[in-house]
């Protein structure tokens, strides 16, 4: 027989109070693991959405109100394309890419389409979904590197030439089109087809894969072609800026507003921040649930342990009379706490993970993948709390007077 045999047998001697404590610990860990799993997956989804969204800062004409980010370039208000150059020359830290856009209404064989003028390479950088097509490869004229000051890796001359250099390296020709997936389906067009647009003949360079964004319904042409054919002049509707998140949420907006004081600068980080705040709230709430339930569990375990010490006084005295040291008695009680903590942590982690994987997609439309760190955190916390809750009862047990086993005591 060993200490663990005694612990196991003693636990099963009176299972009801122990199971009650176990249930509280298990619930605490389950709540934590479930909510944290969903929070982590939600944050990953937002990060993914941000990635597919591309730009996270918009520069808009002052009259435009942003009702819908995706429709922000369809407001018929314009600003000079020269602003793109000004922003590029300003070398603002955190600016990954500038992507000006000009949208005009057009028709292909009487089918209305939105023709969007872009500078292709800039768009490639701004939209990860466009990458990997292999149709628009080559150096990127405005590459700056995330979160690095432009001046740090580009000379003044290079920076000044960047927009121009960017245009010269475009492979989207003056009479070439890129079709969004939905637009291609509506027009029944594919790569290599020729389409009549604004009285000019265009060749379809490629069809974009579906992105789930407004780009799917767009027809893209070179910005300067759209400016020329629509008689809009050198203007754009919006400048989309892809910026590092921390800069987008902070100093970059102030820098942009200073550079273009008459323009409206909106960061999607504000939108994302709201969602992240909700996630943060969920995460904090899960910790609150966790700690409340663990406290309940800890109080329950401590109560059960104290009751156990009171009930087992004579048996503890007997053990001590038979040669049990105080250390042995302490280990006996802490061992029970470790068994309870590990069991509660393990069961709670498994239930929490399974619940998150099942509930996430069904209720929240978020695919939840198991995060290995969370069960480990739940297991460690549950065990730690159970042990902490048992320290005082264990000390009380170890401090019992062994003389109580005698008849006159």
């Amino acid at each position, binding site marked *: 027989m060993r200490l663990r045999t005694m612990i196991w047998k003693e636990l099963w001697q009176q299972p009801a109070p122990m199971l009650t404590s176990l249930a509280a610990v298990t619930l605490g860990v389950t709540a934590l693991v479930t909510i944290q799993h969903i929070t982590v997956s939600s944050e990953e989804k937002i990060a993914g959405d941000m990635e597919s969204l591309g730009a996270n800062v918009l520069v808009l004409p002052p009259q435009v109100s942003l009702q819908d980010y995706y429709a922000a370039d369809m407001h018929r208000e314009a600003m000079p394309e020269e602003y793109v150059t000004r922003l590029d020359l300003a070398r603002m830290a955190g600016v990954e890419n500038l992507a000006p856009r000009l949208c005009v209404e057009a028709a292909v064989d009487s089918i209305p389409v939105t023709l969007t003028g872009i500078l292709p390479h800039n768009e490639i950088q701004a939209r990860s979904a466009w990458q990997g097509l292999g149709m628009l490869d080559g150096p990127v004229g405005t590459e700056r590197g995330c979160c690095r000051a432009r001046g740090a890796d580009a000379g003044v001359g290079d920076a000044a030439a960047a927009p121009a250099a960017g245009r010269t390296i475009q492979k989207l020709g003056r009479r070439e089109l890129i079709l969004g997936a939905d637009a291609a389906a509506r027009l029944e067009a594919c790569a290599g087809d020729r389409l009549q647009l604004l009285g000019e003949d265009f060749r379809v360079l490629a069809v974009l894969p579906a992105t789930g964004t407004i780009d799917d319904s767009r027809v893209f042409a070179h910005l300067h072609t759209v400016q020329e054919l629509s008689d809009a002049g050198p203007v754009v509707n919006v400048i989309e800026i892809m910026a590092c998140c921390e800069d987008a949420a902070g100093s970059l907006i102030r820098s942009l507003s200073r550079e273009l004081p008459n323009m409206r600068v909106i960061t999607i980080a504000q939108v994302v921040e709201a969602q992240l705040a909700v996630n943060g709230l969920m995460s904090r709430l899960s910790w609150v649930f966790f700690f409340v339930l663990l406290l309940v569990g800890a109080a329950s375990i401590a109560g059960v342990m104290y009751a156990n010490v009171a009930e087992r006084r004579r048996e503890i005295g007997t053990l001590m009379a038979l*040669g049990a040291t*105080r250390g042995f008695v302490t280990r006996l009680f802490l061992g029970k706490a470790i068994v309870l903590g590990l069991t509660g942590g393990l069961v709670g982690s498994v239930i929490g993970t399974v619940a998150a994987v099942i509930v996430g997609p069904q209720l929240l439309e978020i695919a939840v993948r198991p995060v290995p760190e969370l069960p480990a955190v739940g297991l460690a916390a549950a065990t730690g709390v159970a042990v902490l809750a048992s320290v005082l009862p264990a000390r009380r047990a170890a401090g019992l007077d062994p003389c109580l086993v005698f008849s006159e*005591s």
Partner: protein
Amino acid sequence: MYELHSVTHVYARRGHHVTALDQCSLEIHPGDFVAIVGPSGSGKTTLLSVLGGMLAPSSGRVLFDGRSLYDLNVEQRASLRGEKIGFVFQSFDLISWLSARENVQVPLMLAGRSSEYQCRRAIELLKRVGLADWSGHRPSEMSRGQQQRVALARTLANEPQVILADEPTGNLDTETRQLVMACLKEFHQDGRTIVMVTHDEVAAAFAGRRIRLASGVLQELSLRNAA
């Protein structure tokens, strides 16, 4: 074996001081069978606790095998109890959630013996007290006599030099009382020292020495060979 020199123990109870042992001096030699008799509250249990290394006296010295017992720390005294002192309690004090065999294994486990040895030794001792067939039973499934025999088997587990028995026949019928005393006599004949606190004159008659304890004062009543 034991030497008590002017041992005094005073309890403080509700602001009053009660002298349980008063300047007690006593020598117990190896192989002695000592019965300590006296009325309730006379200090018998206090004396047994002091001899068991579980209660440090207020003053005086207690020597065990020539060593000052209370110069050892709590853990060392616990180890000493496990190795050299066996206890027999009035209420048997078996661990309720362990079987008879496991109860006998407890002192062996505390002494760090291997599981195999524990098991073998426990079965051997249960055979000796006639309970080999009851090794898997819990105390609640056994009669009081059987429980006390399991307790006796547990006492012998680590082959103690001395057995301290606290009213070993107090809760037993006449037949079982005789059986328990026969066991203690047998342990004594094996060469062990027995110190027994009892109210039972019949049980006390088994002892070679009878010591009366009254109001904390020791008085040797008789000295003869054990029955």
